[in-house]
């Protein structure tokens, strides 16, 4: 059966499809505003003409490459190519500003590959078990998980925790704009039809990270300086040392990423945020996080790539999509007359094994393809600012417009750019705004649903075992600073 699967994958046509979709994924992922989901959606018409395996191989390879490629513009020009890179964009860019663009991208590449391979192995070994676990999650567990993610904002924020809380509050407030999740009441829309659907996440992210950086550059503009210098010593200078030193962290991040990816509705972006937060909490140098921590970048980038494979666990085992990309993939399988779920294990095991092999191969292909993409991207940092900035501005505009085809989103990008610049000038971190925007709807939706289910009884939030553990973890995270203060005080 395994040999049949190998024979299915190692056909010239499948390998060619993987190569082309890999290049496409790298290209799309590195363009701010174009997400992996959008890229897969655009690819669907081409999969009409493919057999099931090449169609799935195209989607898997494209997604793995796109999630990594999002790191490239994040590190070079501070605009995350996909939302999954937002958690560590500040750190990656800070390292680029210190002349370490090559190091940080080398680390992103190798740790992405390692995370992706880990997720693929977990998919092969533990898919049914993980899927069973993920399916037991109800609104209570999701609420605590999202709250745990929000609590990470306090961990990932650089500088003052108070300013981190303000930033998170702004993100949460923006997430409340539009129809409320239970009653459908229009909140803070001011009669605008554009605001009924809420503040769009992509333009907000591009404005916060990209336009605010353009404004900062323009305010300090000097004709003669370049964006930054790149260091000598090669792409993998820090990689092997970091791999040796952080084996356990890599495993922890990849396991976290795969687990979070396997939860329907949670995705690579949430995995990256939580992994970054946990990494900071476990680090010996937490003060470096937010200012250029290679450790934080490596942990988060491993998590988001491992989450890609994690999302396929419920999709393949139960036919329940783990994220939007797997939702499209399930659609493609159904279009081909295949029903994902337990039956596929019995009826077409060779196809399932072939998908596992595709996952491994796609992540291995990422190494040479990603290397070439980084070499190409290196030229970007060597361009003079007065040539580079107009290009960045144009990509900010097009990226904001592309997702909804609405000029209103350009307005959102402008507003967020000004807000981001003002907040950063006052040492307020902008990362938690993005986290609030991502997790705000999830927290509110699951909180309301849980209350309705429990007839307004908050004790129900702790009665289920997993919910109870997540809830206690959350409370520990909030009260830990208080405990440590009391302990220090008693020692004195």
């Amino acid at each position, binding site marked *: 059966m395994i040999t049949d699967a190998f024979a299915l994958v190692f056909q010239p046509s499948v390998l060619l499809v993987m190569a082309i979709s890999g290049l496409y994924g790298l290209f799309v992922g590195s363009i701010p505003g174009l997400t992996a989901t959008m890229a897969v959606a655009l690819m669907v018409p081409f999969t009409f003409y493919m057999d099931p395996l090449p169609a799935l191989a195209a989607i898997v390879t494209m997604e793995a490459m796109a999630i990594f490629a999002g790191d490239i513009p994040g590190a070079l020009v501070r605009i995350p190519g996909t939302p999954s890179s937002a958690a560590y964009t500040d750190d990656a860019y800070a390292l680029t500003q210190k002349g370490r663009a090559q190091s940080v991208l080398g680390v992103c590449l190798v740790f992405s590959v390692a995370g992706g391979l880990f997720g693929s192995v977990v998919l092969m070994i533990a898919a049914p078990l993980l899927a069973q676990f993920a399916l037991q999650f109800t609104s209570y567990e999701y609420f605590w998980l999202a709250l745990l993610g929000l609590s990470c904002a306090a961990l990932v924020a650089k500088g003052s925790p108070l300013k981190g809380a303000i930033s998170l509050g702004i993100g949460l407030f923006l997430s409340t704009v539009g129809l409320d999740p239970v009653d459908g009441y229009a909140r803070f829309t001011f009669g605008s039809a554009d605001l009924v659907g809420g503040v769009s996440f992509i333009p907000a992210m591009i404005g916060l990270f990209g336009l605010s950086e353009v404004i900062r550059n323009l305010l300090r503009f000097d004709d003669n300086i370049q964006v930054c210098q790149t260091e000598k010593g090669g792409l993998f200078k820090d990689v092997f040392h970091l791999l040796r030193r952080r084996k356990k962290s890599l495993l922890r991040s990849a396991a976290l990423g795969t687990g979070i990816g396997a939860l329907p509705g949670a995705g690579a972006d949430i995995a990256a945020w939580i992994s970054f937060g946990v990494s900071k909490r476990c680090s010996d140098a937490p003060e470096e996080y937010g200012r250029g921590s290679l450790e934080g970048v490596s942990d988060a980038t491993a998590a988001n790539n491992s989450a890609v494979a994690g999302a396929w666990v419920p999709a393949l085992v139960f036919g329940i999509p783990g994220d939007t990309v797997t939702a499209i993939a399930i659609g493609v399988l159904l279009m081909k007359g295949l029903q994902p779920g337990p039956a596929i294990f019995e009826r077409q095991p060779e196809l399932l094994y072939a998908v596992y092999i595709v996952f491994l191969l796609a992540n291995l292909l990422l190494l040479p393809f990603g290397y070439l993409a980084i070499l190409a991207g290196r030229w970007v940092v060597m361009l003079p600012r*007065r040539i580079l900035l107009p*290009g960045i501005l144009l990509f900010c505009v097009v990226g904001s417009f592309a997702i909804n085809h609405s000029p209103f989103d350009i307005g959102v990008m402008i507003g967020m750019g000004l807000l981001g610049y003002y907040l950063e000038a006052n040492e307020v971190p902008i990362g938690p705004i993005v986290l609030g925007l991502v997790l705000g709807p999830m927290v509110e939706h699951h909180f309301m649903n849980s209350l309705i289910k429990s007839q307004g009884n908050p004790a129900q939030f702790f009665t289920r075992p997993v919910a109870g553990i997540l809830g206690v973890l959350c409370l520990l995270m909030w009260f830990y600073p208080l405990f440590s203060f009391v302990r220090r005080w008693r020692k004195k």
Partner: protein
Amino acid sequence: MKSDRILGTLVLIGGIALYIATMDFPGAASNRPGPAFLPRILAVLFMVSGILLILHPKPTGNEKEESQPGNRVKVAAMIAGLVLYSMIADITGFLIAGGCLTFGFCLLLGNSWRVSLLVTVVLVPSVYTIFSTVLGVVLPVGWLGW
């Protein structure tokens, strides 16, 4: 310290405004809070944070941005250009609106008109072709698009 107090005041005012804005929202049902629940929690968070920032401002050290003289005008011009773009792009199309934006921004950055023209002529049609033709993302077609 002064900037923290200004920020604190803005956050406090924002919190109060947010609370007032939620007063018209429908009330809670018997088994759950209403649509005002999360915004009101946030309003209280903003008010408390604002007061704390005003009372305990932190010294900001060396973080203040040093802007070149006249660069604030350039930022204002860039924002005006972006607003103008969002207003005219649907009518004129991406090529003209994006071209004007890029050309103007290049000039703003001190490029000569020849370099600005070259950057515009290379960049704008390339971006349009990549998005519209290769990726299938619809950009405003307008007068010159294809």
